[in-house]
């Protein structure tokens, strides 16, 4: 028991690792600030194109979304980071992470938003169009606001997944929180820094996880 505590909850080591982890947390948050908006924007594009009435727009959009839902994000990241340089395309880990996650997250946000748009009764769009609004105006002012509200729990869930996903950046040595913690772990031969990072993730994400669970229950009943 003592051994377990010492290995996973060593307060001294945690305190020593804290500044490093805090710096990593900064990078994690910075990443989130970048990849969440990028993913939502990409997702919106994916949702709108995959619902296009024109088949030659719709099918390629759906195919791309499914492609990026089929490839594990880590594979995508390593392909971008380690593969593209062979073709002379060199980039920093940060840019590689941004690109890989943008592709992956857009596909997932796209599916959520698509479901949201589909959840709005057809009559809503018909009513708006009958008042003379254009297709774009209808989408922006009538369909999207309702659709987003309908899938808000799923949007939050997906955002939780995106934040969790940023931990993969550690694999390409981007100094986010898990990378920092793992570095401290390898220096101290003690897992407590990772426990510490886990605690930070819990503080960041548990409220959102709980919120969504309660929310969805209320809708279900």
């Amino acid at each position, binding site marked *: 028991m003592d*051994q*377990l505590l010492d*290995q*996973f909850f060593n307060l001294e080591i945690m305190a020593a690792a804290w500044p490093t982890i805090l710096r990593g947390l900064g990078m994690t948050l910075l990443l989130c600030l970048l990849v969440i908006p990028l993913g939502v924007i990409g997702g919106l594009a994916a949702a709108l194109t995959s619902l296009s009435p024109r088949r030659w727009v719709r099918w390629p959009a*759906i195919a791309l979304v*499914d*492609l990026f*839902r*089929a*490839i*594990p*994000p*880590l*594979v*995508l990241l*390593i*392909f971008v980071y*380690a*593969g*593209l340089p*062979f*073709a002379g395309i060199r980039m920093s880990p940060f840019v590689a992470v941004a690109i890989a996650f943008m592709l992956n997250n857009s596909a997932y946000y796209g599916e959520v938003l698509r*479901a949201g748009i*589909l959840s709005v009764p057809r009559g809503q769009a018909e009513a708006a169009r009958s008042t003379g609004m254009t297709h774009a105006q209808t989408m922006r002012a009538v369909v999207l606001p309702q659709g987003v509200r309908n899938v808000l729990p799923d949007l939050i869930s997906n955002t*939780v*997944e995106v934040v*969790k*996903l*940023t*931990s*993969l950046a*550690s*694999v390409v040595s981007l100094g986010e929180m*898990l990378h920092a*913690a*793992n570095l401290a*772990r*390898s220096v101290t*031969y*003690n*897992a407590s820094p*990772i*426990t510490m*990072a*886990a605690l930070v*993730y*819990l503080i960041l*994400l*548990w409220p*959102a*996880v*709980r919120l969504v*669970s309660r929310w*969805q*229950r209320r809708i*279900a*009943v």
Partner: protein
Amino acid sequence: MTGFDRFLATFFNGEVIVRYLPSILQGVWVTIACSLLIVVFGVAAGVLLACVRAYRIAPLNVAIVVFADMMRALPPLVLILMVYFGLPNVGIMLSSFLVLFVILGLVLAAFTEEIVWAGLTAVDKGQWEAARSTGIGFTGTLLQVILPQALRMVIPPLTNRAIAITKMTALGTVIGVPDILNQATTAQSFSGNASPLTIAAIAYVILFLPLVVMSRWLEERFVRHRR
């Protein structure tokens, strides 16, 4: 050499592909085996937890909710590194494959529990009353009447989640599980060529795209069914 030839030589180099295809295929089997184990264990454990939760035994329910929340809030890679590098120092040696399977299995169990629980609570209360009014007990009603309806309801989200989590077997690469990605990165560094990574990506697409398409089909059928 034209630009296109250079592109082919870098990403679709026949020689490199032939040389490393066998090891990547080995990785395919590892990925498939691990994925199947995760799905079987994760779904079974998650359904079981959701059913236990239906009895509303307070301490058990708190434990289940805390477990499910933690597993859903923590990045799997954090858990994997913590367990893989932490446990040996307290004298517990686990193979990297086992660590990957156990962690992702537990993560899937947590998501399954939440999804199935939402399904159980979404079944109409009249179903409980009808069954109980004929003398069927709580457990019988839960297993024979409520659970089958709940499972049917949650098949699309459950499929999506199971796919997302089995894809995470690629994380095993980080702790040395010889899966597709691991074999490919090894081959890539030996050959100094990006083709193994291309092959890995294609392998994942072949494995998972049919599942993704199936889940889309399930979802659409379900939505139409509800209307």
